[in-house]
């Protein structure tokens, strides 16, 4: 067995040049826009890696199949009960909106897609690939959730697929509220004990306290996530900041590793005719106000 193959000086120079060229190319790729890197990723995944990804999908499906059937059955039963309960409520809501002269409730639509989590050896992954089956053009940023709760946000999109970040990403922020709307705040990821990532609720006024176990859901502020998506449950108060606000440690409902399918929120823009016809819009009524109309996803 012979491994010892010391190269001649000229071939060593050539090798060094090749390695330096490839290192520069790597740096160039690292500096490319996220859309360009997504295009390379897509080409590699659909060609060289396609057989491996196909095999991985088969393994994952067969290993999770019985678990998925049980969870889907119980989820279906819960949903059927909820639909029956909400049928009357929906009718009542529609009638009340007509009486109050409010336009039709528009919170957008959801599209179902496949979510592939990235989990590299270097560090822990916060990224996922999202792909929807239909020919809908995705726009960003868009909230991604699962039937259980909030998953993350889609950052870049090209046609029906895109790259997103889980809520564990250090830059992730989401506006939340308690179900009764009495308390609002901003949630961000926070490292917990044992390396587990939890969430931290910031900016809760000093005089407000939230009981352990309280559910937090998206407030819909910012228009990225729809209102009412469950995010997590309060564990305990973390610290008092500046004497005027609380921070609460929150146990997230969805763990990135559990999610394989996601729902992307497709926000429908509100037609300008609807905005103009709203009672509070003084511009449309010939007034001098420059304030934007009080409409949005929470409408």
């Amino acid at each position: 067995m012979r491994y010892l193959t010391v190269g001649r000086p000229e071939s060593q120079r050539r090798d060094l040049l090749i390695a330096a060229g490839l290192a520069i190319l790597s740096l160039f790729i690292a500096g490319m826009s996220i859309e360009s890197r997504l295009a390379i990723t897509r080409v590699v995944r659909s060609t060289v890696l396609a057989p491996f990804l196909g095999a991985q999908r088969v393994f994952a499906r067969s290993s999770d199949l019985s678990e998925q059937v049980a969870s889907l059955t119980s989820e279906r039963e819960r949903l059927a009960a909820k639909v029956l309960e909400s049928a009357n409520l929906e009718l009542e809501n529609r009638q009340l909106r007509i009486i109050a002269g409010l336009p039709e409730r528009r919170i957008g639509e959801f599209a179902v897609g496949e979510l592939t989590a990235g989990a590299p050896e270097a560090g822990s992954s916060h990224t996922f690939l999202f792909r929807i089956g239909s020919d809908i053009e995705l726009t960003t940023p868009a909230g991604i959730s699962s039937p259980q709760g909030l998953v993350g946000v889609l950052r870049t999109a090209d046609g029906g697929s895109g790259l997103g970040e889980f809520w564990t990403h250090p830059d992730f922020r989401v506006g939340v509220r308690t179900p009764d709307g009495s308390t609002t705040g901003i949630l961000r990821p926070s490292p917990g004990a044992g390396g587990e990532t939890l969430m931290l609720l910031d900016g809760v006024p000093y005089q407000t306290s939230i009981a352990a176990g309280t559910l937090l859901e998206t407030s819909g502020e910012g228009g990225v996530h729809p209102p009412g998506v469950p995010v997590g449950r309060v564990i305990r108060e973390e610290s008092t900041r500046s004497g005027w606000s609380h921070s609460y440690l929150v146990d997230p409902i969805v763990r990135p590793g559990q999610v394989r399918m996601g729902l992307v929120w497709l926000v429908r823009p509100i037609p300008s005719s609807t905005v103009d016809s709203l009672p509070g819009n003084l511009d449309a009524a010939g007034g001098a106000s420059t304030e934007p109309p009080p409409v949005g996803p929470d409408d």
Partner: protein
Amino acid sequence: MDVERSAWAWSALGISALLILHFLFRPFLVRLPIAPQLLIGALLLATLRLSAGQAAALGFALGILEAAMALEGMGTYALALTVVGYTGARARDLLFADARFYVFGYLFVGTWLADIILLLLGTSPPGFLRLVAGGGIDALLTATVCASVEAFTSSISERQV
């Protein structure tokens, strides 16, 4: 020449098997707290028989594949594995003795250093304990698996001669 070619062919078969196992079971392996780094091990085994330029090119290609599989680190992985491939081949040129025992040491030290480079270039800070303890155990596992594959393929090619 035929002996050389046969040894190369068997070694290439072993390296390909390691790479296939890595990409096939990657989602399972990355979830384990300690697992062999088959990609780095295969690259280091290839550097035993390739020129430094070829090893760098192989490292670059594997880096692109790994980043596409991981969905992040495109460019970063390519850079890290290019450096690993080139320095691995150069280190073999400069240091390597023609003895099988050194393959294990080469794989162990190489994997540990490559693991540290990858963790340092990663998206989240790895922590000292992960670098020292986890990396060392990963490297030990990798060296054991890959040195066994190398010993197996070498023994088959020698038996054929």
